């Protein structure tokens, strides 16, 4: 547990030291929103109706772009060997790395969502459900990202392949995430159950992905 915390803290420190990563993701998110708005046209009603879906789409894409950095540096500079040897369990390393990825890469995206939603004219009642749906579902993205990044270490043309591998597995999160955001905005009784479903999905990934990522890492450093 102490070791997991040490890895988590180191990753957060490294993310903020290196800088740029999270800012780039947020800029990517903003640019996607801009391009979408330009493509749809300045019709307020149409933009507002698709605000939650487009923000969810953009956040998912931005998250997927951030996956390849999770293990790459540790793999190249030999730190991954050190983590594997010191903890004797790459599954726990994967959990620490996922947590650090969420805080350093995805939390900034979630925080950037409300201001971007203003640009799209999202109704006031929809802000809280949108942010909450992202907050509950995005840890699953980080957990999947850890697996993708672990696999990517021995791949040629890793980044495009990672998108192909992860996108199908993310469909449930996107479906229920956007549905929860919409249900919350409409004050529908489905909001609570949908959030529970998202949480269940995240929990399933919390169990499955570190196991899978740990196995993938072991094969990649052998």
């Amino acid at each position, binding site marked *: 547990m102490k070791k997991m915390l040490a890895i988590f803290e180191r990753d957060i420190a490294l993310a903020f030291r290196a800088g740029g990563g999270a800012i780039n993701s947020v800029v990517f998110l903003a640019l996607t929103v801009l391009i979408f708005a330009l493509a749809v046209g300045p019709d307020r009603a149409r933009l507002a109706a698709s605000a939650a879906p487009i923000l969810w789409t953009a956040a998912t894409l931005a998250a997927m772009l951030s996956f390849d950095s999770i293990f790459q540096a540790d793999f190249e500079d030999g730190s991954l060997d050190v983590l594997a040897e010191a903890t004797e369990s790459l599954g726990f390393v994967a959990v620490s790395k996922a947590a650090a990825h969420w805080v350093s890469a995805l939390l900034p995206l979630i925080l950037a969502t409300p201001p971007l939603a203003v640009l799209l004219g999202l109704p006031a009642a929809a802000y809280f459900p949108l942010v909450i749906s992202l907050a509950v579902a995005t840890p699953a993205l980080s957990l999947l990202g850890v697996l993708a990044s672990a696999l990517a270490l*021995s791949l040629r043309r890793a980044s495009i392949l990672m998108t192909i*591998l992860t996108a*199908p597995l993310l*469909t449930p999160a996107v*479906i*229920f995430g956007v549905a929860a955001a919409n249900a919350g905005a409409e004050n529908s009784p489905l909001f609570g159950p949908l959030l529970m479903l998202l949480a269940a999905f995240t929990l399933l990934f919390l169990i499955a992905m570190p196991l*899978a990522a740990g196995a993938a890492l072991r*094969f990649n450093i052998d």
Partner: protein
Amino acid sequence: MAFDLANPQRFEKLAARLVPLLTIASGVTALFGLYMALFDSPADYQQGDSVRIMYVHVPAAWMALLCYSTMAIASAIGFIFKHPLADVAAKSAAPIGAAFTFLALVTGSLWGKPMWGTWWAWDARLTSVLILFFLYIGYIALWNAIDDKIRAARLAAIVCLVGFINIPIIKFSVDWWNSLHQPASVLRAGGPTIHGSMLTPLILMGAAYALGFAALLLVSMRGELAERRIARLEQAGRPPSKATVA
């Protein structure tokens, strides 16, 4: 090493005998199935003759799942017991499964045109099959992106199994998403309530597809095994170093 070579040799012999048998069985079953499907079964009272697309479409969709299940089982065996034949089976099943999945998508789309008046509808089943198709693509691409065969087998097995446990969740979410957005579709009219005169050719076609899959799988596995033997011969050039302790 002995394990690695001896078993594939026995497999070679068995496969060489099975492939012609399976091919003939598949062809004969398909002939019967097609005859019944095209001439000996009724047209649907709503869909007319276009219902006959079902006999190529539905078994293809079954095969899409069957192939993936085969891959998942082979992956699990390869992952746990490190058996190279299981790795080869999983790898060889993937392109065949992808082809069946693609066939299911195309025939679904062809069926959709007369039924929905459009080539594509975001029907729950078609959407699930489309996502399954991407799972296949990812799996195949992963194999192709790793040079070391053993590492590729282990990593691909992880991807296959993670995909496999996710398929029910994806199916559930897509069904739910579809029911939220549109009413039940025409394709769902099939299912267990189907009439016997339609069910028999459907099952025959399913059997023909499955036998064909088995034949193709064996052929493709033999090809892969031959390729690996060549690779091993090419690599055998350099002997291992010996250690002297002093």
